[in-house]
C-alpha cells in the first residue's frame, strides 16, 4: 500500500465508498475480517457525522507504526460548526439533532485509540487508531 488514502466526503454516497476503502486497507494490513468490519463500521459513523453536521470534509486512512506493532489510523476532518462540549458528545445517548447522536462513544469502543479536537465555528477532527492483534 502506498502512502495514505484520502476520501472527500460530500454526500451520503461517499460514506459507502469511504468505508469500502477502509476495509480494503484493513485487509491489506493483515487485520482479521472481524477487525476489518469494526474499522469499516467506525469509518461509516465518522463519515456520517461529517455529512450530517458539517456537510463536507475528508477522511484519511493510513498505516501507522507503533512500538513493535502495526495499525491503521483514520482521521475524519471537517470545517463544520464544531462541538461546543466534547465531554458531553462522548457520553452515550448524546445528540444535538434528536437522532441517535454523534455515535462517538460507539466509535471509541470500536477502535483502540480515540482523539478529538474541535473548535466551535472552525471544525472538528477525530483521529482513531486500531492495532493489529
Amino acid at each position: 500500500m502506498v502512502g495514505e488514502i484520502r476520501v472527500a466526503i460530500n454526500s451520503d454516497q461517499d460514506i459507502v465508498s469511504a468505508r469500502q476503502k477502509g476495509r480494503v486497507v484493513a485487509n491489506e494490513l493483515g487485520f482479521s475480517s472481524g477487525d476489518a468490519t469494526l474499522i469499516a463500521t467506525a469509518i461509516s459513523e465518522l463519515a456520517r457525522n461529517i455529512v450530517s453536521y458539517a456537510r463536507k470534509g475528508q477522511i484519511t486512512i493510513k498505516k501507522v507504526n507503533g512500538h513493535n506493532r502495526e495499525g491503521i489510523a483514520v482521521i475524519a476532518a471537517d470545517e463544520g460548526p464544531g462541538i461546543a462540549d466534547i465531554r458531553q458528545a462522548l457520553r452515550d445517548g448524546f445528540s444535538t439533532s434528536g437522532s441517535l447522536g454523534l455515535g462517538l462513544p460507539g466509535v471509541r469502543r470500536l477502535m483502540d485509540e480515540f482523539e478529538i479536537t474541535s473548535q466551535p465555528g472552525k471544525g472538528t477532527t477525530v483521529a482513531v487508531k486500531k492495532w493489529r492483534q
Partner: protein
Amino acid sequence: MEVPILKQGAFLIATFQAALSDADLNQLRMGLVQQVVKFRSRAVIVDVTAMDVMDSFASRTLREIAHMIRLRGAETVIVGIQPEVAFAMVQLGLTLEGVATALDLEEGLAYLNEKFKVTN
C-alpha cells in the same frame, strides 16, 4: 441502487444487495410500507446477508421500518446478519430491540410459517 421486493404468499421479502447509501435505505423504507399496504401482507422479511457494515443509520432505518410495518398490523423479521456485523453492532449499542431476528431466510420463513400457520 434498487432493492428488489419479492412477494411470497402473505409475506414480502426485501433483499439488500450490497452496500446501500442512505438515500437507498430511505427509498426502501417508503417502498416496503407501500407494498405492505398494497398486498395486505402479514409480514416482511428483510434479508441483510450481503451487508458487510451495519452502522447507526442503517440500524435505525431497520427499526423504523419494523415500527411502521407494525403500525400496519404486520410483522418484520430481519434475517442474515453476519456474525462480525453483529459484533460491531453491539459495540455501537445497536441491538434492534423489539425487532424479530432469524439466522437466514430459511429460518425467517420457518418462524413466520409457524407463527401464522400458513403453507405456501
